[in-house]
């Protein structure tokens, strides 16, 4: 039997802790819980979990501190749990190195999907880089990294080099939200202007090219105030 994936859940609300623990047990994950940041950090150091679920509002320390400390020595995926109205907090957590976030209150299906996505990404990093060159497929859309082409229903869609770069970055991180600044750093380089208008103009043009109805997208979703998320492959 395959060894169970070990998830550490750091959260101070007892009811949420109980419900998530039951849910994850039910889906064959091993769950360890911590109610405070200090306890969480100790557990991270001692058990080296495969994934960390982190609530940002902890009684004894700021969740951001935990992300920073973990990132000093580990690439273990971190999913942040945060309130919806706090965009700045989410962006900060993601830019500090969190892999994804989920907004409170969340449904169980959504949480499980996020966990699967993050685990898959971390596995991909650890195993082969081959998969990174496998074409990205989602519905009618195929992005071929080798031929550097984008096709929808078999028809080639013309993209500018910048648009192609943005799409590749989002597709390689599909399912996860990418902040404006991480996309800008990746596409324009670390010395690019921090203003995200140019990125958003490009995104609008991409949407015009790939979405049938840009206001009701199928491939690229906006997380307003945070960044963009490309749909999972299917």
């Amino acid at each position: 039997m395959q060894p169970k994936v070990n998830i550490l859940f750091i959260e101070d609300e007892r009811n949420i802790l109980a419900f998530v623990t039951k849910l994850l047990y039910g889906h064959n994950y091993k769950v360890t819980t911590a109610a405070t940041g200090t306890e969480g950090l100790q557990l991270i150091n001692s058990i080296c979990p495969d994934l960390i679920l982190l609530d940002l509002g902890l009684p004894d320390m700021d969740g951001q501190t935990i992300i920073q400390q973990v990132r000093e020595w580990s690439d273990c995926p971190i999913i942040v749990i945060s309130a919806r109205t706090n965009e700045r907090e989410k962006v900060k957590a993601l830019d500090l190195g969190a892999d994804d976030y989920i907004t409170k209150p969340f449904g169980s299906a959504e949480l499980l999907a996020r966990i699967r996505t993050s685990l898959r990404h971390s596995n991909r990093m650890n195993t082969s880089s081959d998969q990174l060159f496998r074409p990205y497929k989602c519905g009618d859309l195929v992005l071929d990294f080798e031929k550097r082409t984008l096709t929808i229903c078999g028809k080639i869609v013309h993209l500018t080099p910048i648009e192609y770069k943005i799409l590749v970055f989002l597709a390689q991180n599909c399912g996860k939200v990418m902040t404006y600044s991480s996309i800008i750093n990746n596409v324009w380089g670390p010395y690019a202007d921090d203003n995200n208008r140019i990125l958003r103009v490009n995104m609008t043009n991409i949407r015009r090219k790939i979405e049938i109805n840009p206001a009701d997208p199928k491939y690229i979703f906006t997380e307003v105030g945070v960044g963009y998320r490309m749909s999972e492959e299917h």
Partner: protein
Amino acid sequence: MNKLLHNNTLFTLTLLGIATALAFLFFSFVSENTANIALLYIIAQILIARYTNGYLYGLFSSVFSVICINFFFTYPFFRLNFTLSGYPVTFIGMLIITLLTTATTSRLKKQTEILAKQEKQVQIARQESLRANLLRAVSHDLRTPLTSIIGTTSSLLSDGSILSDAEKKELLENIENDSSWLLNMVENLLSVTRINDTVTHQVNKTPEIVEEVVSEAVQRLKKRFPSASIVVHVPDDFLMIPMDAILIEQVLINLLENALIHSGSSHAPELTVTDHPDHVAFCVKDFGHGLNPDDIPDIFSGICHNTGSVDSHKGMGIGLSICKTIIDAHSGYIEAKNHTNGALFLFTLPKDEEENIPCSQK
């Protein structure tokens, strides 16, 4: 305070200096009529009384004027002589004029101050009563689903063993519906606190792309109502306008939810965004039974009058009053009306001039 004193003194001295200088010019070049000279000083005194605070400056200037006139402009020149016949009357007259002007202007100032204060109090009181009304409406609306949740859970806990699986499922679904409704209401209320955070009732605006905000609102609504279909039209141009995206999303969600739930029709509602020279208009149309014309004038006030109506618009009032608050805070405009076959809600958001020019890229 010190600066004010300084300013007042400077103002008084300058005006008296100008008056004296003019008086000298007049006296030496035009005529040696002391009455005209006195008039010049009176004008200076009235101005001083009007534009300084307190009696002190007015009094000082009137005494100064009297002495000046006596010293410079009456015989014997450059000497004080208060015994000339008729002059005491002039001097006393000047003193009285100054005192009266000062008294009137200072009373005027005090009155405007009091008026401003009263207006502020009235405004605060109005806000307080608005808040109280909202709180009352909210608590009333929250109590209903909470009662149902508590009742359902306790019956599940106590009679769980005698209920069939189908019955249990139905009860659990009721709980889910009620709690997701509660959640939406709480999101609404939280969004209002985002406005009240700032004293000026203004929101924190950042330039946002209209279609991104619209698409996120539609996505979030579809998460709650997976079977819902909504027809969305946005202009092809790149539209970026300043707004608090979370709040505008909330408005869109509230309006679309009303169109889905309360229209009494299964026809997909329509959301249309149109671009205008100085604003962007968002229009939500449903194809149901429309609004009761009697309700339209008060529809955004947060109070639902239609208690007798069969269709209990659970929470619709609060949602709409929150929409109005949000749009007002964006200096926009919102209205509700009926079109030929259903209800129509329209709101506008102003474009910011400086944001507008570089982004109208076609």
